[in-house]
């Protein structure tokens, strides 16, 4: 064990000390982090919105376009075969990354939003009838709320919402009470984008399965911060985006259990998703291709594969431990700021800090922070009902990633004191 090489970005150090991320070395791999905002170094704390890209991902995409690009699943020529192979390798990387059982269960889509829309439309048509119910939670991103609202309206079904407590944790007791013989699906965030709450997904799935109800998990905020094992969680669907995982935008994943995906009708239709087409009858391709109509974001898939390679080379255990340490530090520093109220204090939390400062509007705070080079998100975080639950129009949200340091948290804290001063 002692002689094992350190993963890149992990300082070796003496064998008795726990190994730690070499964050300075990691930061150097992200070209965008070198820039300045005006005269101030960029402090990027909007990682729940999207993450920056390491050189390895940028290079993989450029290399693919330079050397291996062609359309996939069609050409008999060598270049198309190479592109197809690269695309399918990316799928296999995703499968291993979330420990799915079979490549056929990995559908490559544009992102979490498309993944959820796919299930809402396709599973909705398969299973949801008038009077049926779909259960979500009060902390959902609009992307795991509006598609179900629409599906319910179209199918004559009813949307049920499991509440959260004052700490921003799901009320499991209330959730369980919402599971009835009419419930057709549960759709819940693995990690809340606005508050950082990590939901007890195994519990959520176990209770739903106890009533034979399938579960979709919105993993957009989870995959870059937690180890995700879809077989251990036993969810029926799992959705996430590449761009929040240090990969490109425009590529994402829907994992679905094969039996369900096989039974579901196509979502979009066109090329690649068919087996044979005649004017009177079309038969569909097998999964996952049945759900991948048209030419996909091929280079995006390759970039996602590279992002997964990068992420795994650093190591999820190291990343998770480091981010938890950073969260604890940031929470402590922010608690020293007068008149700052944190929104969301779940016991299990990802590295997201949501707060309001005095009675200052979040956008004014964000403008002052931007003036200090600090990029945060201000507003309702696409979770308006959740904001209402906490009686605020919006919050300031600082969300961290593996390349953030204690120093940048100090810059944030200074910026917040300056906001109090400027907007006194």
């Amino acid at each position, binding site marked *: 064990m002692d002689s094992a090489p350190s993963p890149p970005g992990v300082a070796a150090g003496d064998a008795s000390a726990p190994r730690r991320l070499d964050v300075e070395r990691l930061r150097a791999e992200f070209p965008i982090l070198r820039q300045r905002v005006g005269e101030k170094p960029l402090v990027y704390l909007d990682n729940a919105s999207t993450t920056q890209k390491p050189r390895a991902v940028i290079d993989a995409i450029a290399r693919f376009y330079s050397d291996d690009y062609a359309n996939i699943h069609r050409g008999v020529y060598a270049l198309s075969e190479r592109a197809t192979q690269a695309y399918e390798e990316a799928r296999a990387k995703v499968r291993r990354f979330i420990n799915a059982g079979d490549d056929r269960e990995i559908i490559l889509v544009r992102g979490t939003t498309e993944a959820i829309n796919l299930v809402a439309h396709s599973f909705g048509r398969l299973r949801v009838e008038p009077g049926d119910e779909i259960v979500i939670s009060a902390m959902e991103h609009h992307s795991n709320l509006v598609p179900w609202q629409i599906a319910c309206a179209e199918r004559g079904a009813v949307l049920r919402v499991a509440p959260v407590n004052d700490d921003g944790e799901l009320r499991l007791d209330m959730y369980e009470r919402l599971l009835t013989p009419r419930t057709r699906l549960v759709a819940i965030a693995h990690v809340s984008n606005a508050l950082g709450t990590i939901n007890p997904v195994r519990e959520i799935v176990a209770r739903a399965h106890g009533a034979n109800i399938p579960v979709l998990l919105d993993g957009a905020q989870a995959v870059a911060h937690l180890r995700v094992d879809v077989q251990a969680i036993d969810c029926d669907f799992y959705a996430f985006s590449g761009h929040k995982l240090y990969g490109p935008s425009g590529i994402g994943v829907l994992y679905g259990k094969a039996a369900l995906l096989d039974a579901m009708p196509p979502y979009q239709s066109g090329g690649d998703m068919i087996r044979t087409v005649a004017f009177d009858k079309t038969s569909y391709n097998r999964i996952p291709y049945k759900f991948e109509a048209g030419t996909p974001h091929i280079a995006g898939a390759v970039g996602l594969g590279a992002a997964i390679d990068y992420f795994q080379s650093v190591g999820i255990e190291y990343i998770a431990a480091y981010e938890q340490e950073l969260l604890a530090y940031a929470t402590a520093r922010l608690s020293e700021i007068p008149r700052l109220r944190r929104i969301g204090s779940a016991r299990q939390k990802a590295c997201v800090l949501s707060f309001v400062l005095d009675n200052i509007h979040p956008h004014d705070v964000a403008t002052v922070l931007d003036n200090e080079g600090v990029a945060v998100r201000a507003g309702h975080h696409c979770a308006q009902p959740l*904001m209402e639950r906490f009686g605020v129009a919006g919050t300031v949200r600082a969300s961290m990633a593996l390349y953030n340091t204690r120093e940048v948290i100090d810059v944030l804290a200074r910026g917040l004191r300056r906001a109090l001063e400027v907007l006194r």
Partner: protein
Amino acid sequence: MSGNLRDLYRDVVLDHSKHPRHFRALSEPARKAEGYNPLCGDQLTVYVDLSDDVLAAVAFQGVGCALCLASASLMTERLRGRRRGEAAEVAEAFRVLVTTGLQASSAVDLGELTVFTGAHEFPSRIKCVLLAWQALLAALDGSAASVSTE
């Protein structure tokens, strides 16, 4: 960002944002229109009592950032008692000022509204400053019950 924060958040702006003037609803037959910025959730209703083509009273209610509220508050002060045509001219001169930092016409006296001269250096905030004005124009036109920045 290169803009100077103190140019954006002048004392006048902070004062009006904390103590907005004419912060109330006007009852019918006053006209009203809502302004909404879905990006940040700023939401105002602007009321205007128009009699004989004069803005006899201008008021507003709602929630928003400091810039949005201060701009609305200063607007009510500047336009109260003015003729409709003058109000439209002031609104246009103010729009030019906020988007470019330039005073377009010496014929229009913007008065205290010039505190927003620095806003053009903060492009992401221009919509906040103009929201109340868009709602006012919609209320005067009677063209829309609600205007949105997006």
